[in-house]
Each structure stands twice: as C-alpha cells, then as structure tokens.
C-alpha cells in the first residue's frame, strides 16, 4: 500500500473537508461504485470521528463503507491515492473507466473464445439488421448471434442478462403452497381447522420442486461456433443457481475443463479468467475424440441419472463419425438426457446432413437450435422437467 502513513493534504476549514469527502464519494460514483446518500452520510460520520488523523485508517474505513467486492477493493486504493494524495502509480490521474464490464486483455489468435470477447475482430455482416420486428428488444431476440450488427452487441448482452435473470427467478421457486402434495403444511392446516375445534379436517399441503439437476455443458469453440458458445456460456452462468452443479468444457480438437472459471460469481470475472486461459485450437473439430476424453477423465465423476448433458456444436466433425456415435451411446447410458444445440438449425432449410450430425442423431433426446436469444430462452422447457 503506497500511501500508508504519508502526509495528509491540509484543509483550512471543516466545510472544506466535508466538501472533500462528498467530492470523493462523487468521484467514486463516477468510477462505477454504488455510492448513494446513505453511504456519503456515513463517510462523513467516519470523517468526523477523526479516524482520518491516520490516513491508513481513514482508507480502511472508507473502503469498508464504499466497496462491495474484492475487485472494487483493489481499484479503491488507486482511486483513494489519486483523490486524496493527488497521485497514481505512474503519476497520472487514472482514466475514468467508461464501462463497468471487464475488457479482457488482447491476446493471440490461438484462443477462439477471445475473438468474440474482444468483438472487434470480425466485423459482423449487416444481415442481422434485416430482421423484422416492432421493437428493438423483439428484433434483438431474433437476431442470429453470429450476425449481430456491431452497434447492437452491447444492447444484446444487456438484454440477454436481463432475460436470463428472469428465467433464473422463474426456475428458482422451489416450494409453493398447494392443494395436494406430499408434505402437509401444518401451520396452515391448524390455522384453517381452528374453527372446527382443532380437528384436522381439511389438510393443506406444501409441494417441493424436484431435486435440482446437474448439468454438464460441452461447447464447441472451433471456427464459427465460438460466438454461439459465448452466449451459451452467459446463459449457463446466469442459470448456475438452478442446477445443483454445472460443469463446463470447451472443445475443438482437444477438451478443456472450464468449470472453475464459470464459477466466478460475476460474469465479467468469469470471462476475464476465461480469456487468460489458453484454449486449444486449430482448424477442425474432433467431437468424437473429445467426448471420449470427457468420458474417460470425467465421466465417472460427473455423469449420473440426474445429469443433463448439453452439447453445442454444428456437428461438422472432421473425425470418425463411428467414434462420435460410440461416445454418445456411452454417455447416454449414464445420464438423464442429452440435449444437442445446433446453431445451424436457425438457417432456413437446414437439414442435419453432416456425417457427424447423422451419426449423433439417434442418441439425442433433444435437438434444439441455439442461434438467438429466443431459441436459448425456449430451452427452459427442457431444463425444467427433469
């Protein structure tokens, strides 16, 4: 901590200082911190309690008041220095972060997921704009992830976040009052029957939702699939609470486990970590081989009768279709349901003719498109009834 026990800028009057504290709160607010009136008032109380005679204590106190995540705590120190001590590590005033979403650092081309994260790489074609629809939200829900017009990208992500959140809340209601069911709701039963002298005549029940399923997601990140995988990842991140456990993998020619990365509580944190992880990538996909690897290394631990297996791929396999069929058969025997998401299903006149897809079809429980928000949201029905 560079600024502990350094000299304090002098303030001539108390009003000066009050203003300075208020200014600091506003300064933090400008940098994306949630600082309201209540926080500002408490900050002033802290300031008046003369904790500030020791800058390090004042810093700690304000940090506890105004931060709410480890990431904010880290940024706080630099902002504190900049404001109160008028300096930063490199001697400049830190630039105001324009957006709150984390931008992953630039990296080489060998990480396909990064290409979507950075967005700037392939300029999307303008086709997406032709979608009809009354409102923007409606249009965005229909737009193909791979053809999102650049100006819409941010808006689409905000919309996705909002819709996924609603979906999660819908799925999360676990117990509800009911007329019939297994568990008797004693509280309501007694209340109801009091006027019958305490004889329990009418029963009231509580119903519990079935146990939460486990989910294994295997995402193709080769070629054009990474754009779709990116949105599916957002989808899964939002729904993590709905599942007892979510394990995620990305594959192209090799399989990589990204479970831990997705467990970060906030999506930007997940994506940042993901961007730092080297993902194996070269042209072509070997779904069959990757699924076999999954079976051998993780199958025993992750597959059970309560596991949903979600595979996202276009099925354009450069490997052996027989191997893919074999792997899917083995997985199917040990899981609850295999859901295959194919973004190409969004195209008019698509038929699953690719050899890989042909080999896979007999083993799938659900074959579902995943090219736009609407198709992802429609997945709810398959995730709910397990």
């Amino acid at each position, binding site marked *: 901590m560079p600024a502990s026990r350094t000299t304090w800028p002098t303030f001539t009057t108390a009003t000066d200082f009050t203003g300075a504290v208020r200014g600091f709160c506003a300064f933090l607010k400008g940098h994306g911190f949630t600082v309201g009136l209540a926080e500002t008032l408490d900050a002033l109380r802290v300031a008046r309690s003369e904790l500030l005679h020791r800058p390090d204590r004042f810093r700690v106190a304000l940090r506890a008041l105004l931060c709410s995540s480890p990431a904010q*705590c880290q940024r706080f120190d630099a902002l504190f220095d900049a404001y109160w001590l008028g300096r930063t590590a490199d001697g400049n005033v830190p630039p105001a972060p324009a957006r709150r979403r984390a931008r992953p650092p630039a990296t080489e081309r060998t990480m396909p997921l990064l290409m979507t994260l950075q967005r700037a790489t392939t300029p999307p074609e303008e086709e997406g704009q032709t979608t009809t629809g009354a409102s923007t939200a409606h249009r965005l829900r229909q737009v193909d992830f791979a053809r999102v017009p650049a100006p819409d990208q941010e808006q689409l992500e905000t919309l996705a976040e909002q819709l996924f959140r609603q979906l999660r809340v819908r799925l999360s209601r676990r117990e509800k009052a009911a007329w019939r069911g297994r568990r008797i709701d004693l*509280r309501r039963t007694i209340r109801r029957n009091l006027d019958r002298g305490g004889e329990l005549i009418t029963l009231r029940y509580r119903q519990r939702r079935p146990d939460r399923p486990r989910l294994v997601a295997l995402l193709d990140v080769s070629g054009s699939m990474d754009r779709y995988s990116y949105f599916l990842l957002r989808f899964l991140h939002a729904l993590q609470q709905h599942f007892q456990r979510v394990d995620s993998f990305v594959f192209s020619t090799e399989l990589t486990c990204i479970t831990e990365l997705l467990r970060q509580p906030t999506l930007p944190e997940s994506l940042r970590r993901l961007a730092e992880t080297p993902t194996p990538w070269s042209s072509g996909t070997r779904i069959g081989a990757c699924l076999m690897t999954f079976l051998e290394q993780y199958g025993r631990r992750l597959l059970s009768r309560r596991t949903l297996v979600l595979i996202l791929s276009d099925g354009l396999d450069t490997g052996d279709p027989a191997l893919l069929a074999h792997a899917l058969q083995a997985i199917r025997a040990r899981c609850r349901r295999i859901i295959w998401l194919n973004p190409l299903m969004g195209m008019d006149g698509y038929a699953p003719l690719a050899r890989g897809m042909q080999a896979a079809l007999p083993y799938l429980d659900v074959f579902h498109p995943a090219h736009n928000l609407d198709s992802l949201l429609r997945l709810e029905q398959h995730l709910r009834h397990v």
Partner: protein
Amino acid sequence: MSKEAAARIAGLMEGLEQQGYVADEALATVLYLVLTLRRPLLVEGDAGVGKTEIAYALAGHLDTELIRLQCYEGLDVHSAVYEWNYPRQLLALKLWEQSDVPLEERERQLFSETYLLARPLLKAIQAREQAPVLLIDEIDRADEEFEAFLLELLSAFQISIPELGTIRARHIPYVVLTSNRTRELSDALKRRCLYYWLDYPDAAKELQIIRKRLPDIETDLAHQVVRFVQALRQQRLHKIPGIAETLDWARALIALGVRRIDEAVVARTAGCLLKSAEDLEHLRNHQLEDLLAHLPT
C-alpha cells in the same frame, strides 16, 4: 474523540487477540465501525480464512451472546425466524375440548409466545440483556428470496408475526454476514453492509496465529510450517488450504514429534492440508521437492 477512536481500535485488537483471534489494524478499524455505525458487516473470502471466527471472537470480546444462523439452500422463515410449536398447539386443543374457554380466547392463547419457537433471527431480536452478535454464515448459500427477507430485517430490526404482531429489537444486534462468493449477493444487501475482504494471511500473520493458538509449538517448526503452507498456496490447487488446515497440520506435526519437515513427513501428513485426491497426487508428483527446497534450514 480522535484519541478515543484510536484507543478503542487498539483495544479491539488486543481484545480479539485475547480471544485467540489475530486481527490486523484494518480489520480492527472495520469492526470499530461496526460497533459505532451499527451497520452489519459482510465478510467475504475463500473458505478457511477465518471469516466465521471473527464473529465468535467479537462476541467473546464483547462478552455477549453469539447467535448463529447457518444458511443453506432452501432455508426458509420456519427455520430462520420462527415456527409455531404444532404438537403443543394440538395438545392444547385436545385439552380444551372439555373446557368452556371461548373460541376467541383459545385462539389468542394458541398463538401466544408460549407456543412460539424462536429460531436464530427472532432470538437475536428478542435478546433482553444486551446486544448479541448475530452471525449469518454463508449467506451465499441461501436463496435470493431469503436474502430479500434478510434485507428487510437488517434495515428495520423488527419481525412481524401475523398471529402475534410486530416484535421490535430491544438491542440492535451486531451482525456479521459471511460469504464464500459462490454467487453474487444482491446490490441492496451489499449496500446495507460494511464490506471486508479477508484474504489468506501473510507469513507474519500466519506465524502469529499459529503461536497464539498452539503456544507449545517450537519456533523452528512453526517457521517451517508457515513457509511450506505459504508456498503451497501459490500452487495450482483445487482447494487451497486455509488457516484451519495449517493449524490441523501443525497439531499433527506436534503430535508426531516432528522437528523437521521432510519428504516422508509430508507424505504421511499431507492429508491435513489437502483434501482432494487430485491435489495430493499433484503434490507428490510435481511440487514436493520445490516446496521443501524453500524451507529454512
């Protein structure tokens, strides 16, 4: 006033240490704010860094009751706040069958405090003598609905029971919430709370903790333990050992009469530190020599 604050912070540090909890000045300052501003404290950090211990130490220091609510998925009002004692209520109904107590009176009695089972949150509100420390452990495990309910409680410190009316806190409890960050908490809840991020301790602090908790340990061994664990935490592990693990390991080493940590010792006792087969395997195959090489001689 300035002197008073500084003195109270110093007093807190000392008091917590007497409870066996080593708090640095930053934590003591935050706890001072908890006591003066009367705001709840949200402590986040990895598992095993001593989040829960803060509440116990604080309660010990203040010489007050600690009330703990362990959160879990599906936690509801009946287990967290209150529940009517149904068996007793039913029994009472049966007993009254022959009596001529009027119905209104029966109902009034049936839903009186006699038949109320107070769960942790109600208990915390009802404390008579002095403000208790209310520990709400692993809030990230509870459902979002419960979080919303908690938010209401933490702003008003009152609980309304439909059959009984509103119960207001006599003494506002000191609230400590902990979270392992398995999910993001709601902004509203975070805004109500003071925030403290508890990290793994640095070497000096960890040494202090070991000495505090295990006064019998030989200085040399304590140094080795700390050095080894600190280096181990830098490795890629599924589960990074926390302070509890360090203490367990140190206890094991003392019990075995170990004076110097070597490969054989680690092989026999690594289960105290690492709790997964993959991590143990990883340690055996890759890291052990490196880690041992860094030990002080």
